[in-house]
């Protein structure tokens, strides 16, 4: 049984604010040295699935650079390997060929299904989890299912974010509701599906399926009524980091003494692979103070870092303080600056004595009150925060802004700087 994996990585992830202004959600850095898609991609190769397509659309540049020919995952292969699939024009001068949703993206790329593939594993590029797909595939076969979806238990108050499933004890799905207001089920679809090849082609190209755009919202509910759909329970850690708060919490959870997601390598057959640049060890200076934090190669730490996740190449100057924050690759925190409860994107420079995340006011962001309301300030890629600037909570600093874009030495909570 040959399996072909299709990873849906074209989504924008708008709730991740400026983190997804310059890249797709799947390419957002996570856990210091990883990108979100590394988890799904590594799950594939660790499950011995070496034929993988990554479906892209929104801001694919960063993802393309990251995946390249797939070397870090040993996916640079002669037969199989990884392919990056972009939207394209099917006729000269064609317009409107953009993909309108997950089902549309899959339909658009059905031609890339290898002839030998009996089953298609459909995965999301924006989930953090470690999962061996082989038991799922075995279950799918044993059940003789058309479609098998991985499911997990969620608290009832979160049901409205997921496709909720009711299955009989054998796993046969009898009911499926997409993002219901109220439900009696606490079993949620994880957005991980195995399709029998023919079942996938039929679902996307026959009858009313032709017009459906959304896999979870349209295709699956229709299939539950008409085909053999099974649910496979997964017990391990799984996180959808699609909001700033969820993203922040999932990163911070790594700092625990025995974190739910354990990145330590206990088994060299189950490593999360990523593309990493060659960098020397982190150097801790004579005045450095650190507590409960993660650091990556290439960093230079002379200041204080508490309860934070620090990516490769970050410099924390003497007298600078980073607290409860996520700081991405090659960012510089200059002398005397304080970063508190913030997400600092790549190559940001926080000027000397600047404060990011200051004060007690938790005014939600005025432009995006539903996205930024938990006190986290986000600073976009390559932004330069002028020395001495004070920036409050729930603030958005857009990518690439410089001193001239700042209204003054103080940016109060809830403000946005730049576009």
């Amino acid at each position, binding site marked *: 049984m040959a399996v072909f994996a299709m990873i849906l990585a074209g989504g924008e992830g708008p709730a991740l604010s400026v983190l997804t202004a310059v890249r797709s959600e799947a390419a957002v850095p996570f*856990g*210091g*040295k990883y990108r979100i898609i590394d988890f799904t991609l590594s799950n594939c190769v660790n499950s011995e699935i070496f034929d993988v397509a990554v479906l892209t659309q929104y801001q694919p540049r960063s993802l393309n650079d990251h995946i390249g020919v797939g070397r*870090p995952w040993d996916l640079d292969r002669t037969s199989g390997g990884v392919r990056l699939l972009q939207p394209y024009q099917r006729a000269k001068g064609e317009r409107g060929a953009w993909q309108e949703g997950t089902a549309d993206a899959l339909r658009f790329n059905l031609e890339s299904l290898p002839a030998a593939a009996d089953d298609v594993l459909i995965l999301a590029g924006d989930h953090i989890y470690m999962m061996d797909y082989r038991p799922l595939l075995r279950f799918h076969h044993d059940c003789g299912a058309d479609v098998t979806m991985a499911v997990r238990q969620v608290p009832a108050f979160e049901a409205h974010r997921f496709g909720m499933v009711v299955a009989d004890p054998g796993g046969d799905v009898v009911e499926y509701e997409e993002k219901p207001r109220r439900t009696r089920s606490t079993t949620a679809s994880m957005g991980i599906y195995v399709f029998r090849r023919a079942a996938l082609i039929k679902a996307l190209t026959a009858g009313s399926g032709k017009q459906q755009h959304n896999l979870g919202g349209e295709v699956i509910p229709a299939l539950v009524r008409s085909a053999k759909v099974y649910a496979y329970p997964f017990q391990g850690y799984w996180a959808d980091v699609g909001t700033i708060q969820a993203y922040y919490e999932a990163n911070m959870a790594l*700092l625990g*003494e025995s974190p739910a997601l354990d*990145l*330590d*390598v206990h088994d*060299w057959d189950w*490593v*999360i*692979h*990523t593309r*990493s640049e*060659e*960098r*020397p*060890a*982190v*150097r*801790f*200076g*004579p*005045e*450095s*103070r*650190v*507590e*409960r*934090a*993660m*650091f*990556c*190669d*290439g960093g*230079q*730490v002379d200041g204080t870092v508490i309860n934070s*996740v*620090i990516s490769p190449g970050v410099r924390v100057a003497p007298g600078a303080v980073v607290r409860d924050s996520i700081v991405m690759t090659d960012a510089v925190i200059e002398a005397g600056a304080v970063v508190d409860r913030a997400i600092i994107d790549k190559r940001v420079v926080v000027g000397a004595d600047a404060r990011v995340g200051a004060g007690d006011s938790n005014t939600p962001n005025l432009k995006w009150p539903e996205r930024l309301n938990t006190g986290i300030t986000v600073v976009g890629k390559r932004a330069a925060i002028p020395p001495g600037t004070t920036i409050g909570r729930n603030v958005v600093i857009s990518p690439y802004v410089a001193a001239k874009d700042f209204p003054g030495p103080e940016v109060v909570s809830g403000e946005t700087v730049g576009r």
Partner: protein
Amino acid sequence: MRVVALILAGGAGTRLGVLSDQRAKPAVPFAGRFRVIDFTLSNCVNSGIFDVGILTQYLPRSLNEHIGIGRPWDLDRSRGGVRLLQPYQGRGHKDWYGGTADAVLQNLDYLRDRRADTVVILSGDHIYKMDYRPMLRLHEARRADLTVAVMNVRPEETDRFGIVLTDGDGRVTQFLEKPKDAPSTLANMGVYVFNVNALAERMQALAPKHPDLDFGKHVIPSMVESHAIYTFPFEGYWVDVGTVDAYWQTSMELTSGQSQLNLYDPAWVIHTRSQERPPAKLGPQGSARDSLICNGCTVRGQVSRSVLSPGVYVSPGAVVRDSIIMNDSWVGPGAVVDCCILDKDVVVGPGTTLGWGDDLSTPNQRYPDRFNTGPTIVGKGAHIPANRRIGRNVVIQSEVDEAAFSAFSETIPSGATVE
């Protein structure tokens, strides 16, 4: 000019004691995540030399694994790339490499196959960053038969080097191998650019008389009169970490941030093979000062002035000072490691003090001339039992287990050897 580089990596490095018990000197770990040979190999590719032969003989296994097909250096090429050249048998000859030049002579075929007219001969056991291109340009412009890279050394060190005397144009007039009273401080670094034909002719002429054919002892002195030998002055950082003391000192300089060796220069990356490991994690009771710490480390104790390779675990309450600890070693709770070099996979039992007492100058009884400056060295995979006090200049052999310590009381005196 068709250039091939040959790296001499066959040396046993006996003065490094247990560190080179199970590997050749070029394969000894350095600065946390590198191997000594990474510097020379990276110099080659950073200088645009992609045809590299590595001559191995002594314990090549570790080196073979490290180099592999040369991927980290982009030397996995269809044409050229890296070749590991081991001694081999053929009809009519079955000799080990007798000396540095003998090793090259036995691989003359390789140079011919690569159609090289110029060969750069390098040593695999030096730490330095050097662009070989200016030296090659000068070699070509002067139509030299041999260009020798030279640097000034301290007068008291001249008896360890080949000393060079030149005329005003930089042409070599005299070459003295390890002289007692040197008339000059210009020393041969062991970096040579040879015209292949001149080299081949010389080696073939000298080989019958000298089965241990050596560049410094035989080949170069025989060319001074008859050939055009020029010097190329090198002014950067260069060290030979061939002794335990030099190795320890060089590593300590790196931790102080005062070293002239800048590992963090993006324009001259030192490439190495690295395993994919998660970020380094510093726990709530952990601290790190003046130290280099690599990915995959967990620090829950106190680390100062030390170099930790990937995967080192420092337990709560443990103290690591002035030490070098290699991959995946484990320092138990409450243990103290002071002025030590620990090879890979070492276990330091709880409560043990490794490097105890003020008598740093008590030499090792077995090798008083090699180990007499303080560092206690522990071989790969040694298991040190709990609650011992282990003195200075102690040598603990590779793979010893707790039973080996039964010959001692709780205190293992300075200068002892545990085997």
